[in-house]
């Protein structure tokens, strides 16, 4: 376990303090290794196949509207309930109160946090839709992503200061451990069921969109509010 080595090294040699609660640490390590093994096993058995089989099914059905609807629903649903996002949104609401953007009442804060979560979830839903359209059309990924980042950087200079850090972080926190395998399998499945698409070249890239669009959406949100 590399993390343990790092922590042990710093704890013993740099801070010169003994490891507290060695039994608990050991029990925790056993759980971590066991849990990770189980996770990877379940990944191959459950998440990868379901993502791919749904991609095939939609491709066979040939209904673009349903496919895009599914893509949006998947992105939106996985993000709105994401614990990391809930934490960041709460933090953001507190900053907004300090900056005087919103009044300091419980209602206003809860509403602001919920708005922010909805904005990010909307962004991820849009991202997956955009990514799926890209796979269908076969557009090169890097032009879209680079264009997106240029847009985000331009918007940064106009957005209020306190939203910038949150906007940049929002891109990172939206991609959770269960979403990533599902979305990756969906992309690879789609790319391999459409003729003329290369799974490596076209199947990946959905996650890249999902970490880009929340930045843009949250920056826009900060400019509007």
């Amino acid at each position, binding site marked *: 376990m590399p993390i343990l080595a790092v922590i042990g090294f710093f704890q013993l040699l740099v801070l010169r303090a003994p490891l507290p609660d060695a039994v608990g640490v050991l029990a925790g390590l056993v759980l971590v290794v*066991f849990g*990770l093994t189980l996770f990877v096993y379940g990944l191959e*058995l459950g998440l990868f196949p379901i993502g791919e089989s749904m991609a095939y099914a939609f491709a066979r059905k040939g209904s673009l509207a349903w496919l895009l609807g599914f893509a949006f629903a998947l992105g939106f649903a996985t993000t709105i309930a994401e614990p990391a996002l809930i934490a960041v949104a709460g933090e953001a609401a507190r900053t907004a109160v300090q900056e005087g953007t919103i009044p300091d009442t419980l209602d206003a804060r809860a509403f602001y946090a919920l708005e922010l979560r909805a904005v990010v979830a909307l962004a991820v839903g849009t991202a997956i839709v955009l990514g799926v359209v890209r796979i269908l059309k076969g557009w090169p990924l890097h032009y879209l992503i680079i264009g997106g980042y240029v847009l985000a950087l331009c918007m940064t200079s106009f957005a209020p200061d306190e939203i910038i850090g949150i906007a940049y972080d929002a891109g990172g926190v939206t991609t959770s451990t269960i979403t*990533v395998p599902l979305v990756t399998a969906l992309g690879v499945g789609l790319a391999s069921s459409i003729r003329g698409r290369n799974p490596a*070249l076209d199947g990946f890239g959905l996650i*890249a969109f999902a970490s880009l669009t929340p930045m843009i959406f949250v920056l826009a949100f900060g400019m509007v509010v």
Partner: protein
Amino acid sequence: MDIIGALLDTLRNTLLDVAPIAAVIFGFQFLVIRRRIPNMARFLVGFLCVILGLCFFLVGLELALFPLGRAMAEQLTHVEFLYGADAALDAVTYHWSHYYWVYLFALAIGFSAVLVEPAVIAVAIKANEVSGGAINVLGLRLAIALGVGVGITIGTFRIVTGGELLYYIIAGYAVVVVQTFFTPRQMIPIAYDSGGVSTSTVTVPLVAALGLGLASSIPGRSPLLDGFGLIAFAVLFPIITVMTYAQLARAWERRSDRTRPPDREES
């Protein structure tokens, strides 16, 4: 310590987290596709394994590593550790070179946290499958981990020196744009994805603790403005290292024709 209680608690939270995803999948499966899922039992067992595995993993982390990691991030950034117990707060001249232990810790913790990140493992497995084995699972994970480690180190340097986040990010993306033109086309999407997947269950709490601790121990830094933003570095730098990995792998292949790509990268 009440492991069973912690397990049940985490299980409930994970189930709440998974519920909307499951609802979307089953909703579309039954209402739109209207076809029975092939190997339904196998799929359910797999789903169960993922949820249970994630639970054990999270409880284990909470038990073994998170408290220590967080405490250490606080201790290492504490004024007493950096300047000795008797140093008066305002008399000290702050200089970025005093923080060498913090940089080293940032590098090490970023690197090792990503190595155990489940989402990174998932993408590496898929990339390996899709490329027909050309992309090494461990190699990709090491490249992403190195990227996050370096990214967070530069991020802590920025918090210490107080530079503008925007300039660092612009410089980083400039490197990404230039590198994109020299990277084998097949690897570009995987590289772009690796930025997003590296910031997940394990990495975010540890990195956030480091950033907040650092920002609150240095006078003139606001934890809210400067403490956040470390994640942005952790998203940016894996893109660069994975592209570097791809370039090195290709160069290696060309030199020694048909040998396998290297497992490690040096940079």
